[in-house]
């Protein structure tokens, strides 16, 4: 089982550019969540996808958008990058049937640096 895989592992972008991050969930999982972890902080929930729809969203601007594909993989897009978007972006997957007590499995993250 490959677990949750994310690509790329590192990325450097310039302010104002756009970026796309990718995630493949753990086998058997159909729900994908994205988190932003700024340096020295805990992960912050961005949004969550199930059945190719955004199901809930955290307190992030519309510059952050996503997509889920029929094979459950997901993309996170960030437009008009700001220096403050520099962070580790984590993808987590879980089975929707698991409910509130299900542990989420995390990928290794994508380190985004905006210069």
């Amino acid at each position, binding site marked *: 089982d490959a677990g949750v895989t994310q690509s790329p592992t590192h990325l450097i972008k310039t302010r104002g550019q756009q970026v796309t991050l990718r995630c493949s969930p753990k086998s058997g999982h159909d*729900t994908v969540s994205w988190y932003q972890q700024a340096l*020295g902080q805990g992960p912050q929930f961005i949004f969550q996808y199930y059945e190719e729809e955004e199901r*809930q969203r955290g307190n992030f601007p519309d510059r952050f958008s996503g997509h889920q594909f029929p094979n459950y993989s997901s993309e996170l897009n960030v437009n008009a990058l700001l220096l403050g978007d520099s962070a580790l972006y984590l993808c*987590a997957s879980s089975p929707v049937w698991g409910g509130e*007590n299900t*542990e989420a499995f995390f990928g*290794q993250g994508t380190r985004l640096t905006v210069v």
Partner: protein
Amino acid sequence: AQSVAQPEDQVNVAEGNPLTVKCTYSVSGNPYLFWYVQYPNRGLQFLLKYITGDNLVKGSYGFEAEFNKSQTSFHLKKPSALVSDSALYFCAVSHMNTGFQKLVFGTGTRLLVSP
């Protein structure tokens, strides 16, 4: 709103000594609590969770956590620390919204185990 607090930025312990990493929570309803560990430049790894039942929960790598409802705490413990336990530890609470789970994380506690 659900929240967790990790009052210590860093915990220092000598190898072989017991360790405790503190976490307090604030939730409405039943708490579903988790501990994750993060090694440098890596994603989060699940350690253990509390759902219901026995207040002492056993997890991976010899870690355990004690749920205390009256003190709204969920402290992580290990009887004998290893140098390899040095990492960043996050406490999280599960929050259900529109039928989907999201995790709310604390700010993290860095554990440093000295030889």
